[in-house]
């Protein structure tokens, strides 16, 4: 259809005609430059994934405290370490996308010693506990009584993430592109975390549980990674807020 009457005719297995050679050389060089330029443009303008990370530089941290099953396991620290202060409430996970739940089922309210690697992202942190007895064991002594404070019902806006990737197991560990990974973490009972757009009682991150204090309901998985507004009860466990999310009240926020 193009008017090729006077244009050089290319046959693949013959030498390119003179009139076409310089054009093809230009196309070839242009293609390589285009690809390098696009690689540079896209690669150099990627968004900041945040400052979350495994803190291998802290070294192994060992703390003692009271195990609480919210139902996600957290430790109310009574004897801290260099990077985990006394009085802190520390979320726990096992390696990979696996929960610690099967190992701590009988330890609710008990004094325990936990050891592992810290992940942190600003105010948010979590410990990836070592395997076996080295990771978690009963501690000597009686567990002190731990209070929790009901802060009432709240409607908050933000994003549900899996707490481990958010804390730095993955960079980036948030957003729609990470949703399937976050769901997979939640299937493994990794603690979900709500990232609120406005601080709630001074905290931007809230551990999320189901409406009756159960694990995060499967019916709410479709809400993960989306920007939503949702209601629920907020309970303070030490310096950690636990959000009893009610999926029926969730609304997508544009």
């Amino acid at each position, binding site marked *: 259809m193009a008017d090729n009457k006077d244009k050089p005719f290319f046959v693949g297995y013959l030498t390119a005609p003179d009139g076409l050679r310089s054009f093809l050389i230009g196309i070839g060089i242009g293609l390589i430059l285009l690809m390098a330029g696009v690689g*540079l443009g896209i690669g150099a303008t990627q968004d900041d994934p945040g400052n979350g990370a495994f803190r291998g530089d802290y070294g192994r941290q060992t703390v003692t405290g009271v195990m609480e099953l919210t139902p996600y396991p957290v430790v109310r620290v009574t004897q801290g370490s260099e990077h985990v202060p006394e009085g802190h409430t520390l979320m726990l996970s096992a390696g990979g*996308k696996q929960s610690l739940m099967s190992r701590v089922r009988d330890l609710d309210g008990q004094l325990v010693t936990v050891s592992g690697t810290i992940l942190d992202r600003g105010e948010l942190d979590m410990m990836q506990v070592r395997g076996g007895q080295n990771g978690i064991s009963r501690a000597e002594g009686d567990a002190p009584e731990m209070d929790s404070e009901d802060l009432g019902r709240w409607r908050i806006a933000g994003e549900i993430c899996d707490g481990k990737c958010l804390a730095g197991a*993955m960079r980036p560990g948030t957003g729609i592109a990470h949703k399937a990974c976050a769901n997979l973490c939640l299937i493994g009972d990794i603690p979900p975390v709500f990232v609120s757009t406005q601080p709630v009682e001074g905290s931007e991150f809230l551990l999320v549980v189901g409406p009756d204090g159960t694990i995060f309901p499967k019916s709410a998985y479709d809400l993960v990674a989306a920007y939503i507004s949702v209601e629920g009860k907020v309970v303070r466990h030490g310096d950690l807020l636990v959000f009893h999310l009610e999926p029926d009240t969730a609304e997508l926020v544009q």
Partner: protein
Amino acid sequence: MSVKYIPVQWNPNKWIYDGIMLAGVAAFLWVFIHVTPEILSHERPINSQVHNARAFGACAFLMLSIILAIGPLAKLDTRFMPLLYNRRHFGVMTAFVATAHAGYILNWYFAFSFVPKWDALILSNTNYGQLLGFPFEALGAFALVILLILAATSHDFWLKFLTAPVWKRLHYLIYLAYVSVVAHISLGILQDQQSLFLPVFFIVTAFLVALLHVWAYLAERKTGDPLASAEGDWMRVCQADEIDEGRARIALLPDGKRVAVFKHEGKLSAISNACAHQNGPLGEGRIIDCLVTCPWHGFQYRVTDGQSPAPFTEKIPTYNLRVQDGAVLVDPKANPPGTHVDPVEVA
């Protein structure tokens, strides 16, 4: 052209073509993977697996866009025709690059779980009823399956086995793959972007690919092959003196097929316009060394009987032809492929 199947019929042009293509891919990946981490001023780097996945994914999208742009560019300007010549290698390379992207994703986001990776890919997000949070990975996987099918069937063996029309229809799936990739990106990484470069590049590229196709379609409609007009049982193609030596005029016949009337050594012959290889437009080719030469891949045929010269075995239909009052008339009933028809002297 070949009398036997070998993995690749290499020639200098294919080496140059593949060399440039590989240099482009290598430049993209090297700059993305090794140069840009030094430029990014993030407090903590993006995980290398994610960085690599993005590099291969973006490269595959760009390659697919270039591949799809070649067709309409070649229709609009025949100087781009050489890019068409070895496009299949470009496609196979794109399938490899896309596979690498999928591998990084599968072995990162879907790893470290008690759920097997492939099960996790399918089951971890089933939010198909909502655009926000749609399992865009499924769209990417669907596109990759298409790319792998097209790569696996790209060899001439499959072209001959399936026949050119079926093979071409199969390879039109590339458009479905592209639409799927566009949706994969739109519903995936684009949802989280704060930087403008990727969204702007993506939208402009996809728009250009679409625009080129529309432009080529409109140009084809405007300057496309004319419908042959009936002269009794014969069809008038053009005036004999409108055909240049060594070139052809193409006309559309009532059965929807195209005939190409060539002038060679002052005599006219009519053959099917569809090359036996990939249905390339023979009438847009030239006569080289007394043989009609396809502009797409250089397959050659004798103009008098539509047969490729020995030892090649390709054949195309011929048409009976006569010249009456200076007009070229063609019998619309095609002769069986390879039928000799005496060329007609131009009066």
